[in-house]
Structures are given as structure tokens and as C-alpha cells.
């Protein structure tokens, strides 16, 4: 359980930090409007939104390390799977990243988030399976 | 026909190139069907080796070992293993339950090696045997969750799962306290009384000879009383 928790914490850090260095904003690219001002591209907003998922995921990992009861493991698994799903949806369906495959946000940020999200879901599924097999131990 | 017959059996271990140790020297022993034989002796007297020879677990340097009139060492490994599985039950001195299996799985384990359909209903028979030894509430427990005495009772149940003709017990109570020792010995006596199974029990405690129908003493690899 502690190993799974450590993995979730690491993935939370990846989800929160990697997009900050791989979105177009960090590469000095932005959208130029007709009036001359610049606004960030949508990959930047995806990166910001991922922080909002990474923080609760980090906390979830910390709680996971100390959870022993079957019921709490089930809840953690459910929350983890949900967060993992949104990690994947943000760069693909909800906000998105730049369309060109040449952009770093498309070639690095998006696949990293998808892979991390899949791993979070897999770990959550594993936690749920092991919790179902657990014989409840009373102190 | 004796149940177990050892004819002039010797077992010598080559400890090193120069040093050889004779654990059993020229022993002849007949154990009849239905006997409860208690073999006593100090550590190093050769009693465990004698038991292993009787079970076919170790090959004699010379002599013959027969079980139900079959020369054990004329059989292939497969035939010997099958014979052991069907005709002999073992109770060991050391904790011999597999830690990764539950109590029920441990008792049913020997049926996994059977090829004569004795593995059918294995779990039901195992549960019944655990009831006989007073552990019907521990079916899904793991060995680490049992006391030493409880573990030994599970081992006795396992020894009986294949309905063997012979029960071989190697110092089964040496790690137990006095009260538990009595419980285990009573269990052996009850099983012997109810089923008429042939039992050979090895111990260094001479007080236990009262539980058997015959007592044999060993020293320096030889039998003192036949």
C-alpha cells in the first residue's frame, strides 16, 4: 500500500509540475490579438488546471499511505480514479493543447498527462481490488 | 506380513572425504499392522534416520526396506512418491505447515499429489478432519495465526487426509509445553484406537512410552530392545 501511495505522490508531482515547463507559455509563445496584446494559448490553461488536480491527488497519496480499513481504501480508489480521469480529459477533451504536433505541449505535455492519468487509474483499480480481498481486521 | 519391515539396514553419511558417520547400523525391525510403536533414544541415537529409512526418504547404504511387502527402493521416484502419498502420513518435529496456505489448504495439500481420485472432495474431508482435531473454527486462518499446539494438530489432520495405513511421527511434541504434549499424545492414542492405524512415533521423552503398544530404545544407531 505504501508503494502505491508513493507512486501516486510521484505522479501527482509529475502532473502538477511537468505542464508548467512544457506549455507554450514556458517556451515564450503566446497568441497575439489584433490589438497587439498577447494572451496565453489554451495549453497554458490546461497546465494551470492540472495543478488543481495534482494537489488533491498528492493529498490522496499521503492519506493512502496510512489507510488500513477496507472502506477508506474503497473511497480512496474511487477518488483516485476520478482524478486520474480528469487528468486525461483536461488536455484531450475539456481544454486541450495546441493542435500542431511540433509544439512541445502536444508532443510532451499531453502524452505525459495521459500516461500519468492512466497510471493513476491503474493504481486506484489495484487498490480497489486488494481492498475487496482484504479480510477486515479489527483492532 | 509386516506393515513395515527393515532387514539389516545400515545408513552411513559421508560427512567429508575422510569422515563417515554411521547413523543406523544393521537394524532389523518388523512393525505389524495396528501396532503403536514408540522409539526412544537420545539425540544422535539414529531414531530420526530410522524413521526416514522406513518412509523411503533416505536410501539405506545396505539392507532392505519394505512397506506393505513392497521393496521401497525397487520403485521409481514417481511410484515411491505415490506410495508415500497414499500409505504414509507424516508428523514432523519442526513447523511444517506451508505459511502461504490456509489451514484448510494445508490439510488438503497431500491430495494434490494423488492420482487415484482421492483429490475429489478434498476440502470437505479436510474440514471434517479439522473438526476431529478440534480446529473447525480455524479453516481460513494462516499458520502464523495459530499456536504451536494448534499447528501440530493441523499437521496431524494433514497426515490423515489420504487415509494412510501408517503414521510416522518424528518427535511431534518436542517443541510443546507439557499440557499441549499430553493433548497431542491423547490425539494419537484416540486415532489409533478409532482407526487401528499403524503408528511409529519417535521421541527422546521416555515417559511417552505408556501411550504405545510397544516400546523400542535406540542408542548409537542400533536397537537396544526389539
Amino acid at each position, binding site marked *: 500500500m505504501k508503494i502505491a501511495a508513493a507512486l501516486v505522490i510521484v505522479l501527482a508531482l509529475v502532473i502538477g509540475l511537468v505542464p508548467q515547463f512544457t506549455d507554450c507559455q514556458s517556451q515564450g509563445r503566446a497568441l497575439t490579438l489584433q490589438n497587439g496584446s498577447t494572451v496565453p494559448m489554451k495549453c497554458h490553461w490546461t497546465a494551470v488546471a492540472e495543478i488543481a488536480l495534482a494537489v488533491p491527488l498528492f493529498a490522496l497519496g499521503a492519506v493512502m499511505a496510512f489507510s488500513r480499513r477496507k472502506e477508506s481504501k474503497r473511497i480512496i480508489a474511487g477518488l483516485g480514479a476520478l482524478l486520474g480521469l480528469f487528468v486525461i480529459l483536461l488536455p484531450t477533451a475539456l481544454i486541450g493543447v495546441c493542435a500542431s504536433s*511540433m509544439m512541445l505541449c502536444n*508532443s510532451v505535455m499531453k502524452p505525459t498527462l*495521459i500516461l500519468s492519468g492512466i497510471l493513476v487509474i491503474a493504481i486506484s483499480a489495484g487498490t480497489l481490488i486488494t481492498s475487496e480481498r482484504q479480510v477486515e481486521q479489527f483492532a | 506380513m509386516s506393515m513395515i519391515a527393515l532387514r539389516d539396514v545400515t545408513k552411513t553419511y559421508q560427512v567429508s572425504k575422510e569422515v563417515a558417520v554411521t547413523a543406523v547400523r544393521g537394524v532389523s525391525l518388523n512393525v505389524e499392522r495396528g501396532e503403536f510403536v514408540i522409539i526412544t533414544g537420545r539425540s544422535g541415537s539414529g531414531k530420526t*534416520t530410522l524413521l*526416514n529409512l522406513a518412509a523411503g526418504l533416505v536410501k539405506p547404504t545396505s539392507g532392505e526396506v519394505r512397506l506393505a511387502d513392497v521393496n521401497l527402493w525397487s520403485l521409481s521416484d*514417481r511410484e515411491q512418491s*505415490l506410495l508415500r502419498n*497414499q500409505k504414509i502420513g507424516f508428523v514432523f518435529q519442526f513447523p*511444517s505447515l506451508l505459511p502461504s496456505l490456509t489451514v484448510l489448504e494445508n490439510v488438503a495439500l497431500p491430495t494434490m499429489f494423488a492420482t487415484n481420485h482421492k483429490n475429489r472432495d478434498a476440502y470437505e474431508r479436510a474440514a471434517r478432519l479439522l473438526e476431529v482435531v478440534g480446529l473447525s473454527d480455524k479453516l481460513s486462518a494462516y499458520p502464523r495465526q495459530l499456536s504451536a499446539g494448534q499447528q501440530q494438530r493441523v499437521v496431524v489432520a494433514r497426515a490423515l487426509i489420504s487415509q494412510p495405513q501408517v503414521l510416522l511421527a518424528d518427535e511431534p511434541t518436542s517443541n510443546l509445553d507439557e499440557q499441549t504434549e499430553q493433548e497431542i499424545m491423547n490425539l494419537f492414542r484416540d486415532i489409533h484406537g478409532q482407526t487401528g492405524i499403524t503408528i511409529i512415533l519417535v521421541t527422546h521423552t521416555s515417559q511417552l512410552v505408556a501411550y504405545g503398544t510397544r516400546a523400542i530404545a535406540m542408542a548409537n544407531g542400533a536397537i537396544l530392545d526389539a
Partner: protein
Amino acid sequence: MNLGQFAWSNIKGSAFRSWVVFLCAMIVAGFSLSTVLIIRGAQDSLRLALDRLGADIIVVPEGAETKVESALLMGKPVKVWMPQENLGKIARVPGVAVASPQLYLSSLSNASCCAVSDMFMVAFDPKTDFTVEPWLKHKLGHELRLGEAVGGSYVFTPEGEENIKLYGYFITLKGNLAPTGTGLDQTMFMTFETAQDIARISKTRAEKPLEIPPNSMSAALVKVQPGADTRSVALDIMQQVPGVTPIESPDMFQTFRQQITGLLRGMLVILSITLLLSLVLIGLIFSMAANERRREIGVLRALGATRGFVFQSILAEAALLAVDGGAVGIGLACLATYLFRDLLMRSLGIPFLFPSLPSLVTLVGGGLVVALGGVTLAAFIPAYRVSRQDPALAMRE
């Protein structure tokens, strides 16, 4: 309980050891599959690119071979020119069936007049072209009109727009070609007429005009007559047309082939080392496990297990861990290779196309076999030795 269940209970009973073997199998299988996917992907990609080009010989200005290969394979725009009159000379060489000229252009970098930066643009002559034209006839049913273009699989019209802006000129994207995993996927194809129109408009509307030297072309694609020897034709072209280099199709992309071969060698070395170390580690782990379980195995033998059963049960443990670890490793390898394919292409500098599903299934099966074979091989000797030990001796302390 059967052998598999018994092996599984032993796996659960020694969690740390099982995890180590699992991880070794995962790494070996995953790395093997990644290696094969990358190399196979690069080779498939090269093959598709050559098929797409459709030419037996590509004639380029002398010294421009590497630049042109780079443009076609990696999508890095290039500007190379040779006199248009070379086309006539090439067409007259005996054995040449068709010679079709192409112009290699590129969009501007970070210019507001271009929707995409540094995109490779290829202009072709619709009268003689035999690469894009067949696709156009099949997919669109007509040739490209003025202001129209087709793109590789990565070319698209920006969101919310109806056209692609290049040099201040609005181009209508009529369709996308199938992916090749090469730079052709990021290339836009248009007619000579459209390219000249862009050059004309760009003088007033673009930050920098599109310069097309008059009476020039970048390359000529050649189809040889049936039965003609491509090598002889190429040699004749070299002799009769000064200042050009003809590249035969099989020799095309030599630089990249060498790169792929070099990469393959490097990856095979790393894979061999990883495999060897993993097998040694797994062998050691199973030896340790067999040693620690000597007494337990002695008990099993006393209960009636044959030598064969003991041997099979240890191999079954190895096989279960190999399959589970291998499956996870392979799954991760497939996922990572697929998700990061663009990054792989750019960082390794080779083309890459993810294999089709039937090919992938075959490769996955192969990967599992490697994992299974490797792990069970590593466990073979410890399993054999422990199955042969004397049960009575094994049970002694």
C-alpha cells in the same frame, strides 16, 4: 488446488522476491518491445515514404542529397534549386518514362502572415506528376484548382478558420494523405500555379515575399520505363545532365538508414546487457528462494510430491511472474511509444510510424514469449537442482 494455484500462493508468500522478478520481466519485455517498435516503425516509415514518392529515381542538385532527404523524411524545409532546362535533358535520357519537376518551399518562421511556421511546401506539375495526382483522382475526383492544396496527415486548418494562411494568401485544404510517419506528414502539396500565385500575392501581403527563382526547380522525380535498368538510367542521367545527382529509390534515405542501423545496434547492446543482468538476477533470486525453502520442499516430497512436481511448481512460479510482469511491461511500452511518438521522432531524428493492429498483436506476442522464455530459463537450473535434493537432508536444520 492445482499447480497454478499452488505456484500463485508461493508467489504471494514471498512478496519482495516476487516483485523483483516481476519488475525484471517487466523491464526486459518492455524494453524489448520498445526497441522492436521503434526500429520496425522507422523501417515501415521509410518504406511508406518511398512508396508515397513513387519515383524510381529522384534527381536533385549536386551536393543537396542529404538536405533533400532530410526535407522529405523529417519535414525540415529546404531550398535547393537547379535550372528548369534540366528537366528536358532528363526526360530525353534513354529509359526514362516520365520526369516530373517539384519545387521545395517553406512558410515563414513566426510570421503573422503565416498560420504555421516553417512548414515544408511542395509544388508539383499536375501534367506530369505521378505521386499526388493518383491520390487526387481517387479521393477528390478532380485535380487541385488554384488556391487549393492537400496536406500530410498532420496538416490541418486552424480552429475557427476556413483556410490556411500562407504569406498572406488563403489556401483551402482539400484533404489529408494517409500517415507515413515521416516529414511528408507535415508537408503541404500544391500545384506550380498556386505556388506562383502565392509568390505574387506575398509581395504585398507578407512580411517577407516567397521567392521562387525563375526557370528553376528543386528536384525531378523520374519513373523508368518497364524493363529498363534503373542503375543504368541513373548513370546516364549523371553523365548527360551536369550539376545533378540522381538518387535511386533503394538508395534513398541512406543517411537515415545508417542512423537507424546505428540506433538498432546501440539499442540491441543495451537490451542484451539488460537481459543478461535480469536473467542473472532472476537466477540468483530463484536460487535463494530454493535454498530458503529447502525444508518446505523436503516436506512436499515427504507428502508425496514427485521431483517433477517440485520442478514444475518452481517453473510455474517463474512463468506466472514472467507473464504478468511481461504483460505490464509490454502494455506500458506500447502506451508510451504511441503517446510519445512525435517526441521520439524528433529526439532520435528518425521517421516513425506506429504499427497496425495485426502487426502490434504479433509483436506483443513475441514480447511475451521473450519474457516467458527468459524468466523460465533463468529459473531452470535452481528448479532442477532443488527438485533433485534428498528430502531427508533437506529437512535437516
